[in-house]
């Protein structure tokens, strides 16, 4: 049998090269930032607030200072030199101070530094704050929350999609649904905790911290410390999971840098799992009000979607996924609105597929409800409303293979066996349900720069400050260079995750492969051109006088299609060089040249998705079977089939793994994950991995990934649509829809816990 984890490439797919760092990772040799040895480190432990709103009136440090080995304690009283870097300008939050104002539960109020981790931990538990406390507003519906129109306050979302007259469309539509959905807060909980290690050499700072954006962190930390960014280096060779949580600077980094400076000694912080819930970001809870109008034949005539998203008091973070949901089908008229609801919470932030996870869950649930109301098969209903043009401005899709995905997934799944009647399928004591939903993710491409060096023996080194967060960046970047330079992947050394390398964008928005590979491709093309030029302009070489257009690189040689060739070594000798090295900057169409300079300064702009003359999306179809126990109502997912199309797939193995992992996270979103809030204190109650539930192996049975060939020349030079954030979109809707099919019960608030199915 073929190896399911390494699918045979179809058209426009790259080889399933094993991850170059796989062995390092499973043998513990991959060096994560906190593993980096620094000389004689001191250890920092954070103290966080137990109240969400109020003021520190007194901070009793006597007990903590008395613990042997304690070196220093940072508080609001001695950290005034840290500058503010507000939300949206490089920081994940505006709540950056150690007090005395408290604006969220779990705000850092002290950093205790000691000779040992144990002493710092012991001392941290002896820091005694006295607060004057106010009653916090925790979430939707809590007294004291305030609501604003997101377009008035969000820097990114000044306009939201609108088309035609939705109200008129609903008034004239024979079939209308009007429904509300809700998603819970979720925390990323990467296995690797939030760590920061800072070491100063004279006035140069090195930060070892797992990061999805080393240039952003470098510039952000420099701003907070008020120093020249060139004096800051950020190293993050690997991140042990990130999912967005390590994309923007959090307040801790500058605090640890300051602690190291005060002591003139490296300082290392590994925050606890519980602290990770409040010192970084999370996916906030959302609410959705959706209306759909359709003709009897299933053609949609109108879609309206109003979203409500919780954010912190000071910051207007919203994901505004209507930007994407509004493009998805031939809706006819579209009306969208997003509201930000300010509560006394930490500022939310990017979490895998930020806009689409909540909004597509809501839309794809509503699509199922509409299909049911129309008496149509849910896949047939989507086919009727499939389109090659966005309803917003009638702009064409650069490519779109949604229904091909549905067809292939449906065939593999056996969808035709579905009895449309809810509750009709049963196996012993288990009710059986089939459900489906669409996965969709905007294609983003950003600017990037790369340096590539080729040696005469056919070895190459690629340098680009991209990020390995489990996405396979080392591997696919190496593959792109190997392909362009005509050498083996094993001959390519890839250096990433270091702000001394040429910059790449944040590893977010699934742009890494598209952006980094485009930059690497461009740089390799410069090297190719130099080699070709040297080969054809030589007086005596075997390729002298030929056209460079007829040449290619293969097995360490420049070759022509008739088999004539010359080795790199010979060409280099004649060129009189030891190595050939080039540097190139890639700026995607639609961005100003300034974009690269901005990137060096830690700012990223990207193109793609719903913006531009063509709309650019990766898509997929997910079909699931659920089983619900007739009596005790446990919910099982014995199988899930997803088919996905995302332009060129660089490596079918890493792609398969991303998509499979995504669907598993989708199962988690549907059935398991939710951060529980105690509204009395605006605190997260299940802030540990025992109580914050994710599926275990036993919950994940058959997961089948189908890769669908797709060619897209418009998205970017690499032809790649990012898919790291594709497969966890829609899964929760597919499962909710299947649970409805099994039981007749429609759950409109995630996660689906068994108590929601106990009625009747």
């Amino acid at each position, binding site marked *: 049998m073929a190896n399911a984890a390494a699918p045979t490439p179809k058209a426009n797919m790259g080889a399933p090269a094993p991850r170059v760092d796989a062995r390092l990772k499973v043998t513990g040799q991959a060096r994560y930032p906190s593993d980096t040895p620094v000389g004689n480190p001191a250890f920092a432990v954070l103290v966080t607030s*137990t109240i969400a709103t109020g003021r520190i009136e007194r901070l009793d440090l006597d007990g903590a200072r008395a613990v042997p080995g304690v070196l220093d304690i940072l508080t609001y009283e001695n950290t005034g030199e840290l500058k503010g870097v507000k939300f949206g300008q490089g920081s994940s939050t505006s709540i950056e101070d150690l007090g005395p104002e408290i604006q969220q539960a779990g705000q850092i109020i002290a950093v205790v530094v000691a000779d040992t981790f*144990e002493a710092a*931990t*012991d001392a941290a*538990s002896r820091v005694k704050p006295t607060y004057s406390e106010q009653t916090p507003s925790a979430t939707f519906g809590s007294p004291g929350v305030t609501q604003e129109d997101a377009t008035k306050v969000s820097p990114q979302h000044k306009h939201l999609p609108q088309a035609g007259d939705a109200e008129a469309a609903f008034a004239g539509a024979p079939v209308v649904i009007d429904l509300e959905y809700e998603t819970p807060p979720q925390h990323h909980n990467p296995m690797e905790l939030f760590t920061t290690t800072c070491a100063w050499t004279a006035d140069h700072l090195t930060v070892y911290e797992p990061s999805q954006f080393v240039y952003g962190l470098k510039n952000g930390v420099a701003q907070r410390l008020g120093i020249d960014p060139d004096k800051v280096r950020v190293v993050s060779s690997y991140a042990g999971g990130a999912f967005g949580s390590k994309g923007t600077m959090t307040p801790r980094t500058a605090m640890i840098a300051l602690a190291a400076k005060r002591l003139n000694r490296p300082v290392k912080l590994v925050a606890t799992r*519980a602290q990770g819930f409040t010192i970084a970001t999370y996916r906030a809870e959302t609410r959705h009000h959706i209306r759909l109008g359709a003709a009897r034949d299933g053609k949609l005539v109108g879609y309206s979607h109003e979203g409500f998203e919780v954010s912190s008091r000071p910051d207007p973070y919203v994901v505004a996924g209507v930007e994407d949901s509004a493009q998805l089908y031939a809706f006819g008229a579209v009306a969208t609105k997003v509201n930000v609801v300010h509560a006394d919470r930490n500022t939310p932030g990017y979490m895998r597929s930020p806009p689409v996870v909540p909004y597509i869950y809501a839309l794809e649930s509503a699509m199922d409800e509409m299909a049911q109301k129309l008496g149509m098969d849910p896949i047939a209903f989507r086919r009727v409303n499939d389109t090659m043009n966005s309803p917003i401005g009638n702009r064409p899709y650069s490519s779109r293979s949604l229904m091909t995905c549905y067809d292939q997934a449906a065939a593999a799944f056996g969808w035709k066996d579905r009895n449309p009647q809810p509750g009709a399928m049963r196996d012993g004591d288990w009710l059986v349900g089939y459900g489906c939903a669409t996965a969709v993710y905007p294609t983003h491409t950003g600017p990037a720069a790369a340096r590539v060096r080729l040696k005469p023996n056919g070895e190459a080194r690629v340098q680009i400050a991209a990020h390995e967060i489990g996405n396979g960046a080392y591997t696919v970047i190496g593959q792109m260079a190997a392909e362009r330079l005509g050498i083996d992947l094993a001959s390519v050394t890839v250096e990433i995750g270091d702000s001394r390398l040429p910059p790449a964008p944040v590893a977010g928005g699934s742009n890494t492969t598209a952006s980094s590979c485009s930059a690497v491709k461009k740089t390799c093309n410069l090297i190719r051109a130099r080699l070709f030029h040297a080969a054809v302009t030589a007086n005596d070489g075997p390729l002298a006088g030929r056209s460079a257009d007829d040449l290619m690189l293969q097995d360490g040689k420049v070759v022509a299609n008739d088999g004539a060739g010359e080795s790199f070594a010979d060409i280099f000798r004649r060129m009189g060089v030891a190595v050939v090295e080039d540097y190139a900057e890639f700026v995607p169409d639609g961005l100003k040249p300034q974009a690269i300079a901005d990137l060096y300064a830690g700012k990223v702009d990207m193109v793609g998705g719903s913006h531009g003359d063509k709309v650019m999306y990766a898509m997929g179809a997910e079909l699931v079977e659920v089983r619900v*126990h007739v*009596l*005790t*109502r*446990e919910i*099982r997912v014995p199988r899930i089939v997803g088919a996905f199309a995302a332009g060129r797939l660089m490596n079918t193995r890493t792609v398969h793994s991303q998509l499979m992992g995504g669907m598993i996270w989708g199962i988690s979103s549907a*059935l*398991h994950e939710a951060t*529980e*809030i*105690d509204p*009395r204190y605006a605190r997260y*109650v*299940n*802030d540990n991995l*025992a*109580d914050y*539930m994710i*599926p*275990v*192996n*036993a*919950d994940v049975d058959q997961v089948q990934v189908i890769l669908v060939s797709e060619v897209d020349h418009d998205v970017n030079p690499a032809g790649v649509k990012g898919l790291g954030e594709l497969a966890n979109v829609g899964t929760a809707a597919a499962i909710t829809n299947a649970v409805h099919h099994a039981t007749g019960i429609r759950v409109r608030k995630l996660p689906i*816990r*068994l*108590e929601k199915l*106990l009625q009747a």
Partner: protein
Amino acid sequence: MRPFIYERVSDWAAATQAAGGGASAPVSYLAGGTTLVDLMRLDVMRPQRVIDINALQDGRYGRIELGQNGLRLGALVRMADAAAHPDVRHHYPVIGQSLQLAASAQLRNMASLGGNVLQRTRCTYFRDVSYAACNKRNPGSGCAALAGVNRMHAVLGGSDHCIATYPGDFGQALIALDATVDLISPDGARTIPFAKLHRQPGDTPDQETMLRPGELIVSFTVPAGPWTRRSLYLKVRDRQSYEFALASAAVALDLEDGAVREARIALGGVATVPWRAADAEAALRGKTIDEQTAMAAADAAFAGAQGHGHNDFKIELGKRTLRRALRQAAALEI
């Protein structure tokens, strides 16, 4: 974690001496450490001395013995070993299953049976010392769970002072089968019914057991009975493994021509202590098990149940769990 003194002992006399009533500072025994070390790291348990008793497992503390009159399980037997033991699985399936369905493989390899029955509640307000109100951790401070997030909390055996669930599984099997606990301390040895080991919270939720200071659990004895083979443990939870029960039932039946001669029933995930459902047993005596009698037994079992908001569903879920367990046990081929 706070500094503490670690001692390793090789016989019970030294152990109980070290931990005895006269000890001046808080002392804890250490078996597998999966409860103790966890709670020490969370600063919830703060022993100043920790007495490692694992060396005792070479003797009777570490043995599983099956005799005519019943089963004897040493307190230092690992959960995994008891769960996999052929005699346990064949003659006392409810015991094997309650252990097999608990925790994770790694934890079961570490954790002892003695430690298991003494595991502490998973109430988050108890486990996080930054919450001021928790009568169990800090007597007289109040109970944050009563009006807080209490989905996992108990609907049986609670009080106005504490509604923390007893989280274990094995305890239900023991109480259903009328097990006894063998104890030893410098004051001597004694044997008590397992049903007397745990105390309902009442107004002293900080006092969880009847153990005397320094008293050591030696073993558990499970009497033989005609019901032990027709027994099972059904655990309903939010995921299929590595998760505590939302509701569980330990059921053992002695049937004669399909009618119940004796039933032994205990409930987990829903009560503050291992919970014997005597009223449900009585309701079944002499009856055949069908949908109606199972429902009547379940209603009897939860007659006094009290929800607190998020956990209201546990009353219905607990009943359904028991109904399902009874039907399954009655249908067992033995």
